[in-house]
């Protein structure tokens, strides 16, 4: 039963990644692209968590922790760059 639920969740997040990819390519402005990139990172964290359940190991959580931190820093620096034209003043 968990296998079916896992497959469903994998399908949902895979489709969500495709939506984000579409929004990165076709967007009205650069702000939407940054937002879509941030969502892409969060969805990939969810996919890594699902893969950890599938394999039954806790190794992937270390990886997703690293991805979460990198994603946060990169989104904040994108936002700084959009605001100031400069990341570190």
């Amino acid at each position, binding site marked *: *039963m*968990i296998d*079916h*639920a*896992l497959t*469903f*969740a994998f*399908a*949902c*997040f895979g*489709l*969500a*990644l495709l*939506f*984000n990819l*579409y*929004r990165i390519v076709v967007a*009205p*402005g*650069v*702000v*939407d692209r*940054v*937002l*879509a990139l*941030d*969502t892409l990172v*969060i*969805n990939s*964290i*969810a996919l890594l*968590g*699902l893969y*950890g*359940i599938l394999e*039954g190991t*806790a190794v992937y*959580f*270390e990886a*997703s*922790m690293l991805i*979460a*931190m990198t994603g*946060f820093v990169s*989104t*904040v620096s994108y*936002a*700084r760059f*959009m*605001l100031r034209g400069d990341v570190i003043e």
Partner: protein
Amino acid sequence: MTEILTEASAAEILVSVFLVISGVFGLVGSFGLLKLDNTMARLHAPTKATTLGVGGILIASMLYFLLFEGTLSFHELLITIFLFLTAPVVAHFIAKAHIHRHESPDSTPPTGCARPWATFETDEMREAVEAAERGEAATSEARLKAERG
């Protein structure tokens, strides 16, 4: 259907329900990114629904390792707390970038007082307002003293 249900234990049902709910939330969050029609509205879907979806996945994984492997891991809780802390910060930064790129003090809704929205207020404007407030406070204190004699 009945066979599946009789074979499944309560723990399996619990983990599966968390997985399905969080999958739906993740999908809705990313679909909102496509469907909603302006940037400020689009900001809501990923920062709220998707974060909830990831939180659900991580709770499901904690339950899975607790109930089936017999180990309690706190990594998932760490990731959940980190995401719940950073999602509002990211949303605020993106909203601020959008306001400064695409809006002006005239296109934003009225604040209801003499001051503009904080992000448009320059240092000189803020100093002027604060000096006026200090002046008012000083005069009212002086009036109180005078009334007391």
